[in-house]
C-alpha cells in the first residue's frame, strides 16, 4: 500500500494501466457481446483491450519517467495504436491525461481530476456528432465527480473510489439515454469498457485482486438481464446497411484536425478524428471507403489502413456468439502454413498456432503455384511451411525457393509428424530456433494409415483382397485383414512401442465413433505400457491415421 500517501510518478501511471488491462482482458468477451452501437459487430471489447495493451507495451521500456513524460508517451502510443471507434475515443482519454499531467514530475488527486477534465473535452471535440449514452457519458460523469470531490488531503485512491462508483452509475444510465441500447436490452459496451479500465486503476492502487469478479464489475441493470443482445433487436436491424469501417493514420505537416473532421463528417458516419499537426488517426463508417481514402491522400501520407465490412461482421455477430477470438489477434511476426485435410486435423493445426491451412493430402496434392500463392499472400515475412505428406514435400521446397518471403520447409512427411512439429512451436522464438526444434521433434514419430483396398493384389509380400482393410507404415503395406482392429494392431506392432510411448489414433470421416472406441480398447489392451489417445481427425479415405512416438 505504498501508494496511499505518496504522489505517483510515471512508472506508477503505466503500472496502473498494466493492471487495468489484466482486468479488461477478462471482460473482453462480455464487452464484445454488449456491442450494438454504432454497429452491432461485437468488437468493442477487443478494440479497447488492444488499444490499451499497445499503450502499456510501448511504454513498458520507459523507466523513471516523470508523470508528464510518461503520460505524453502513452498518449502518443494510444494515437498510433487506437483500434476501432472506442479505441480512438479512448486515445483521447489518454491525450486528456497527458494534458492534465503536462510537465508534472508526479501527480496526486488534484492533477488527476484535471486530467479527467481534459479527457472529457478532448473526447467530445474529437467526435463529429457526440452521442450520449456511450463512453462519452462515462467521461463526462467522472470529470464532474472528480472536480466536486477535491478536498484537502484526498489521495488518488480516494478519488478513484468515487470515480469508479460514478462510472458504474453512468454505465447503468446508458440505456435511458440511447434508445438503441434499450431496444437491445444492454448497456453500452464502450461505457462498460471504460468503467472496467477505471476499476483496474483503482484496484492497482488499492492492492486488490485483478480477478474478474463480475459481481462488482457489472452494473445492477446487467445482472438482472442476460448479457446477450436480444434476437429481436438483431432481426429488426437486419436490413440496416452499415457499410465499411475505415481507419487509417495520416502523416503530414501542419495538419488541421478540425477541417479534416468536418470534411470526413460530410461523407461518413461515426466520424472520429484525433491527433496533432504531424499525425492524425481517422476512423469513419462509410459505404464508400475509396472516397474517404482519396480525401486522406489529398491531405498527407496514409498508414495502417484497415477496412472492415461491417455488414458481414454484423451478420457474424447475429449468428455466432459475437465474440472475436483474442488469440488470433495477438501480434505475430512468424507465420506457420500447414497442409492438412479433415476438419479435426485442420482444427488441431489452427489451435496449435498455424496461421494458414492449405487443403491437401495423399489424395489431393496442392501444386507449387497453390502453395506459392498462399506464401505470397500471407501477412508474414517469415514463414514455416509444414507439407505433412511425403508427396507434397518437393512442391513445398520449390514454392519456398520461389517465394519472396523467408520461408523454411519443415520436412514433415505425415500428419502426426506435422502435429509433433507444430507442438514445439514457440511464438516468442525466431524462425531459425523454431525450425530447428520442429525438425528435432519430427524424427521420433512413426506413423501409418489404415484404408480399404480397392483391388486384390499382392504387395510387399502381403496378400490383399479387395475390400479388406490395409495398413500402410510410411507408405509400405504391412498388414491386410477384414478386421480394422487387427490392421491397427499390426501397424503398431511394427512401430517400436515401448514404455511411455504415446499412441495417437486419428479417426477418419468414414469411421463411426463407436467403431473407433472399440479399436481404441483393443489398442489399450495390447499396449498397456503406452498412453493411448483417440482423436477425431475427420480425414477422408483413411479410416485411421495412427502414430507412435
Amino acid at each position, binding site marked *: *500500500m*505504498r501508494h496511499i500517501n505518496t504522489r505517483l510518478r510515471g512508472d506508477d501511471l503505466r503500472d496502473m494501466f498494466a493492471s487495468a488491462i*489484466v482486468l479488461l*482482458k*477478462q471482460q473482453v468477451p462480455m464487452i464484445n457481446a454488449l456491442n450494438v452501437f454504432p454497429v452491432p459487430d461485437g468488437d468493442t471489447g477487443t478494440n479497447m483491450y488492444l488499444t490499451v495493451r499497445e499503450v502499456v507495451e510501448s511504454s513498458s521500456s520507459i523507466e523513471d519517467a516523470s508523470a508528464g513524460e510518461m503520460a505524453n508517451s502513452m498518449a502518443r502510443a494510444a494515437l498510433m495504436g487506437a483500434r476501432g471507434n472506442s479505441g480512438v475515443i479512448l486515445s483521447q482519454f489518454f491525450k486528456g491525461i497527458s494534458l492534465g499531467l503536462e510537465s508534472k514530475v508526479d501527480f496526486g488527486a488534484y492533477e488527476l481530476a484535471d486530467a479527467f477534465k481534459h479527457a472529457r473535452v478532448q473526447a467530445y471535440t474529437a467526435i463529429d456528432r457526440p452521442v450520449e449514452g456511450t463512453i462519452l457519458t462515462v467521461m463526462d460523469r467522472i470529470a464532474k465527480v472528480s472536480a466536486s470531490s477535491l478536498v484537502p488531503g484526498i489521495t488518488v485512491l480516494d478519488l478513484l473510489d468515487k470515480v469508479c462508483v460514478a462510472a458504474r452509475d453512468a454505465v447503468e444510465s446508458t440505456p435511458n439515454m440511447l434508445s438503441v441500447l434499450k431496444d437491445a436490452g444492454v448497456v453500452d459496451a464502450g461505457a462498460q469498457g471504460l468503467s472496467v479500465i477505471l476499476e483496474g486503476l483503482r484496484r492497482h492502487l488499492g*492492492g*486488490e*485482486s*485483478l*480477478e*474478474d*469478479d463480475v459481481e462488482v464489475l457489472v452494473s445492477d441493470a446487467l445482472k438482472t438481464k442476460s448479457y446477450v443482445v436480444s434476437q429481436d433487436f438483431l432481426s429488426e436491424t437486419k436490413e440496416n446497411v452499415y457499410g465499411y469501417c475505415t481507419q487509417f493514420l495520416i502523416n503530414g505537416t501542419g495538419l488541421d484536425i478540425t477541417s479534416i473532421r468536418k470534411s470526413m463528417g460530410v461523407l461518413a458516419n461515426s466520424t472520429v478524428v484525433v491527433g496533432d499537426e504531424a499525425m492524425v488517426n481517422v476512423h469513419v463508417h462509410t459505404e464508400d471507403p475509396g472516397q474517404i481514402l482519396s480525401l486522406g491522400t489529398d491531405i498527407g501520407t496514409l498508414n495502417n489502413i484497415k477496412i472492415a465490412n461491417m455488414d458481414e461482421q454484423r451478420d457474424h455477430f447475429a449468428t455466432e456468439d459475437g465474440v472475436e477470438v*483474442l*488469440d488470433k489477434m*495477438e501480434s505475430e511476426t512468424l507465420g506457420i502454413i500447414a497442409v492438412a485435410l479433415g476438419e*479435426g486435423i485442420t*482444427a*488441431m493445426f489452427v*489451435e*496449435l*498456432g498455424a496461421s494458414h491451412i492449405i487443403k491437401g493430402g495423399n489424395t489431393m496434392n496442392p501444386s507449387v503455384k497453390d502453395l506459392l500463392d498462399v506464401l505470397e499472400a500471407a501477412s508474414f515475412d517469415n514463414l514455416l511451411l509444414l507439407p505433412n505428406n511425403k508427396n507434397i514435400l518437393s512442391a513445398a521446397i520449390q514454392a519456398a525457393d520461389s517465394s519472396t518471403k523467408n520461408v523454411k520447409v519443415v520436412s514433415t512427411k505425415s500428419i502426426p509428424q506435422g*502435429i509433433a512439429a507444430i*507442438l514445439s*512451436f*514457440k*511464438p516468442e522464438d525466431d524462425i531459425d530456433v523454431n525450425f530447428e526444434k520442429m525438425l528435432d521433434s519430427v524424427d521420433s514419430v512413426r506413423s501409418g494409415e489404415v484404408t480399404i483396398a480397392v483391388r486384390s493384389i499382392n504387395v510387399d509380400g502381403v496378400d490383399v483382397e479387395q475390400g479388406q482393410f490395409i495398413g500402410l507404415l510410411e507408405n509400405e503395406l504391412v498388414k491386410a485383414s477384414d478386421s480394422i482392429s487387427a490392421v491397427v494392431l499390426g501397424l503398431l506392432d511394427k512401430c517400436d512401442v515401448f*514404455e*511411455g*510411448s*504415446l499412441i*495417437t489414433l486419428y479417426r477418419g470421416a468414414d469411421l463411426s465413433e463407436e467403431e473407433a472406441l472399440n479399436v481404441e480398447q483393443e489398442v489399450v489392451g495390447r499396449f498397456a505400457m503406452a*498412453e493411448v*489417445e483417440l*482423436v*477425431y481427425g475427420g480425414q477422408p479415405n483413411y479410416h485411421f491415421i495412427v502414430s507412435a512416438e
Partner: protein
Amino acid sequence: MAVKIVTDSASDIPVEIASELGITVVPCNVHFGTETYRDGVDLMVDEFYEKLVESPVHPTTSQPSPGAFVDVFDSLADDADGIVAIHISSKLSGTYNSAVQASGLSSTKCPIEVVDSYQVSMGMGLVVMAAAEAAQQGATMDEILTTVKSLLPKAEVFCLLNTLEYLRKGGRIGAAKAMVGTMLNIKPIITIRDGVVEQIDKVRSTVKGENKLLEIAKSFDPIESASVFHSTSPEAADRISQKLFEILPESKSPVRANLGTAIGVHSGPGALCIALICKS
C-alpha cells in the same frame, strides 16, 4: 528471543515442517461462489480437489485480510526480536500488499519486514524454510533478510499441468502465452518468471512431461535444495522425487509437498511440480 518467520498458505510448506521450523502460516481464502474457506484450515486438499472438479462454479482465491496479518504480527511480537514475512508474488496475489498494510497498522514496536518473493508455492517455500532454519540458529533479522534476498533470485519453479484451463479461468495467464488446443490432450509446462506465470513448453504425454521436468532440473545443476510437489499425483511425485535425487547428487533429498487450495485453484488436478534453489 528470536526472529519469527511468517508466510502465507500459498507457500505450500507441509504442516509438519512448518511446525518443526516454527513458521507461522497465514491462510489464504478460497471462495466457491458465496462459500469461503481458509486454505488448509477449513478445507483440506483431498476434499478440495474433488470439489474443484465437481463444483459448477469455478472457485476464486483472495488474500488474507490485513486484519488477519495484524493479529498474527501482534501475537508473535511479544517474544520476538523481529518478524520476517515472506509472501507470494505480488503480481499474482494481493497477499503481499495485505501484509505490508498490516505491518503499518500493527501497534507493536517489534520490527516487521515484508518480502515479496516473486514466487509461488515451494519456490518460496524452500526459501522460507531456509529463513526459518537460520532463525532457529539465532541469526539476526538483517542476516535472515540477506539470506532470503540472496536465495529468492535463485529459486525456480516448474510445473507440468494436466490442462491450462484452471490458470486461464483464474486469469493467471494471458491467452497469447497460453497456446494449447482442445482437440488434443496437451499438457503445458509453466514456470514463474519475474513473478508471473509463463508457459515454457507443452507436451502430449505424461512421460514426456516428466522427462522434460527432469531435463530442466538437470540444466540447473548444481542445486542447493529441491522440492517435488503435486495436486493429485502422488505416484508421479514419487517417481520424479527418486529420479531428481539421482541426477542432482549435490542436492538434499527433495522436500515433498502438496499443492494446497490457494495454488490448486489455478493449477487444477494432475499437476506435478518441482522447485529448485540453485547453488549460484
